């Protein structure tokens, strides 16, 4: 069985794997690739048995019976046999541990700063993501600033990361870390007032500098407004601002979301939840189920290595499997208006997918490979019908 170097350390290793990939093992990007497997989940509502999809120029071009016969004949086929293929996971707003570069300490209100300026394509944390199934992420200014700035959609890559969309969401924060005792605002009152004043100015007309212009543009619908808020009182304040200025927020953290659930539903807010852990109380583990029942869009955030287990724990606490997979893929893409780019394997989206020996929400299923833009960046090559863990695969189906 062919193998690639799945883990890259430092900057020399990527070049080795990159060269190996291009020259020896993978088909050229110019060449069409057809990927086949026993089960292909294009999106949670489009599942193909004995499915296939065609990748052209790093994007999904056709799937299932839509694949033209001629194109299929000419394409290189990568067969994953009895495996299950799902879209790659999308990691919601994160600084990837780079607060040093994504939290402008001199000022609390910096909505016009762009996370993209601090994006390091060679960052080690980025290279680790494919092993956890993350194929794209929303690099976001830190919640340490009341208005952090504009986030970007980026992807890990074969060697270095790439920018998929340069400007995505506006990141605001009312969390404890944003209320800094060394500079104003030091209190939640002050933090809310800072945002209220800025939104008021943004709504009033054309005044203010580039920072106010960013808020004005976001209020006009140019981008989603994301507010980091954990506690009841922070969430209530975030929802107050959303109601006063007429936007539908994405609330990140939302630890005490159940306390404001009726308002979240009424104001069509969406949530990015903290990772679930097995030792948590049942009420916390049940939160995703409650949100799904209430029709609140949500996804899992926080650490990449806890994404899959969060979804599994949510399923164990009652969440529908489809909804759980959606929370890892389609929902985060949709919340940030990136669903035409990532989050599913529909035609036009990047060919970002994961190969498992069985249902990815079954922890006995092994993670076989990760592809980003049609290139394998982690795991085992295809054309190896024998799954990584045959016993688990058999059990999963």
């Amino acid at each position: 069985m062919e193998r690639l170097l799945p883990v890259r350390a430092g900057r020399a290793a990527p070049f080795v794997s990159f060269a190996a990939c291009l020259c020896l093992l993978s088909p050229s990007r110019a060449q069409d690739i057809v990927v086949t497997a026993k089960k292909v989940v294009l999106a949670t509502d489009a599942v193909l048995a004995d499915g296939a999809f065609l990748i052209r120029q790093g994007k999904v071009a056709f799937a299932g019976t839509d694949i033209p016969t001629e194109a299929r004949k000419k394409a290189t086929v990568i067969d994953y046999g009895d495996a299950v293929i799902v879209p790659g996971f999308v990691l919601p707003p994160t600084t990837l541990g780079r607060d040093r570069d994504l939290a402008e300490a001199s000022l609390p209100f910096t909505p016009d700063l762009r996370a993209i300026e601090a994006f390091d394509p060679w960052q080690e944390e980025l290279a680790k993501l494919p092993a956890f199934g993350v194929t794209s992420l929303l690099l976001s200014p830190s919640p340490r600033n009341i208005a952090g700035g504009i986030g970007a959609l980026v992807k890990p890559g074969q060697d270095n990361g790439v920018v998929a969309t340069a400007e995505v969401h506006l990141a605001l924060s009312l969390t404890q870390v944003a209320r800094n005792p060394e500079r104003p605002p030091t209190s939640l009152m002050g933090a809310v007032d800072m945002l209220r004043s800025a939104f008021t100015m943004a709504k009033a007309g054309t005044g203010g500098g580039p920072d106010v212009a960013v808020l004005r543009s976001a209020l006009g619908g140019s981008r989603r407004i994301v507010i980091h808020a954990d506690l009841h009182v922070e969430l209530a304040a975030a929802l107050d601002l959303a109601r006063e200025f007429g936007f539908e927020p994405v609330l990140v953290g939302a630890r005490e979301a159940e306390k404001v659930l009726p308002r979240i539903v009424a104001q069509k807010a969406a949530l990015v939840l903290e990772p679930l852990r097995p030792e948590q109380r049942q009420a916390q583990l049940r939160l995703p189920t409650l949100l799904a029942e209430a029709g609140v869009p949500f996804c899992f955030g926080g650490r990449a290595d806890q994404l899959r287990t969060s979804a599994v724990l949510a399923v164990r606490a009652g969440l529908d499997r489809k909804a759980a997979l959606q929370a890892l893929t389609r929902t985060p893409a949709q919340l940030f208006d990136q669903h035409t780019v990532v989050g599913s394997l529909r035609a036009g989206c990047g060919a970002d997918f994961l190969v498992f020996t069985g249902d990815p929400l079954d922890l006995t299923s092994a993670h076989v490979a990760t592809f980003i833009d049609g290139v394998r960046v982690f795991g085992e090559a295809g054309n190896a019908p024998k799954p990584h863990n045959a016993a688990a695969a058999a059990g999963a189906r």
Partner: protein
Amino acid sequence: MLRFPLLGITLVCALLPAQDKATAYKNARLLPGGQPPIENGVLVVGGGKVLAIGGADTAIPAGAAVVDCAGKTITPGLVDASFRASNSADMNENGDEVTPHLRVLDTLDPDHRSFARARAAGVTAVHVMPGSRNVIGGLGCVVKTFGTDPRAMVLKEDASLRITMGSEPSQENRPIRGGGVDSIYYRRPTTRMGVVWEVRRAFFDAKAAMEQTAGAPPAAPNPGIEVLTRVLKGQLTAVTTARSEQDLRTALRIAAEFGYRTILEEAQDAHVVIDELVAAKTTVMLGAPSATVVAGSAGGDGADPRSATVRLLADRGIPFVITTGSNLQSLDLVREAMFAVRNGLSATRALDAITIEPARLLGIDQRTGSLAVGKDADFVVWSTDPLDPASVAESVHIDGLSVLALR
């Protein structure tokens, strides 16, 4: 005790329809607030409102649930006109000394234990103000003590503007956090003189803005100046926290200088400046009359609380209410009224000072503060006379909902 808040919410929802059905509390001693007591009275509530109140012959609607309250006393829900709630770090914005436009409502946490404690003590409405670490702290609000959404608990949104005299606003204005002189904490005021300077400058600027905008195109919006202007125009109540004699005099002097009216809050040394209070026709929110010292961050202000102050205020005809305030030695609100009675205040005046009087002062008396037809069904069933030391609040109702067992 419910373990999960969500269950609490669910229970509230389950109980809500019960409010629509009328309930009659009969054979109780009713102390309606601002009215004479009613022996063997009947209180009928339904739909969250008081439907009827009167003597034993008061008609009870057909189908109403009847609760026999023989031996018990029913009062309006208590109103605490100065109540400390929530996290003090979030109620004091240290970024500036003068923050008139900041709203305490933005940081109010309905789950904070202070609300549960207040409910258990029969308090159904409270006036919450920003903390006392700023010279001008911001806008206070009046809320009921039970709810899940702070906005839904509001009785009056912009109820007051808090101004603080004394040492508290200047206490932390030194580079005390290991920082240098460039720290945000190294600034004026560091003295009582500096505190007054900040107030004077703020109102001077507001007055200048008022004069400038008369007939002229409006200046750039300044929310802080707008709030101060409302105080100067008499549209918003100023509440000045002042404990010691010198601070009380200063508070009255600045108010007179700029021509605004202010309520004096805490006012432990009111007994020293009683003539000035009479002359200024000011109202006093007396903080914790039971306390013998001022404990906490204002302990160094030199105030000298006296038990007789509350009776002195009554005897001199100075309008006053009794509050728990910010003194760490304060007791439950009803116990503070009890101490006032022990020191010579009549029971009726004492009860009015924690029900209808603060409701009037805060402008919420159309909704709560007394038991009258059409008002919110905010009331407390006490095991016996509420001013009896052995009395306990057996059930507390807000908008007709019994709230002691919830959350």
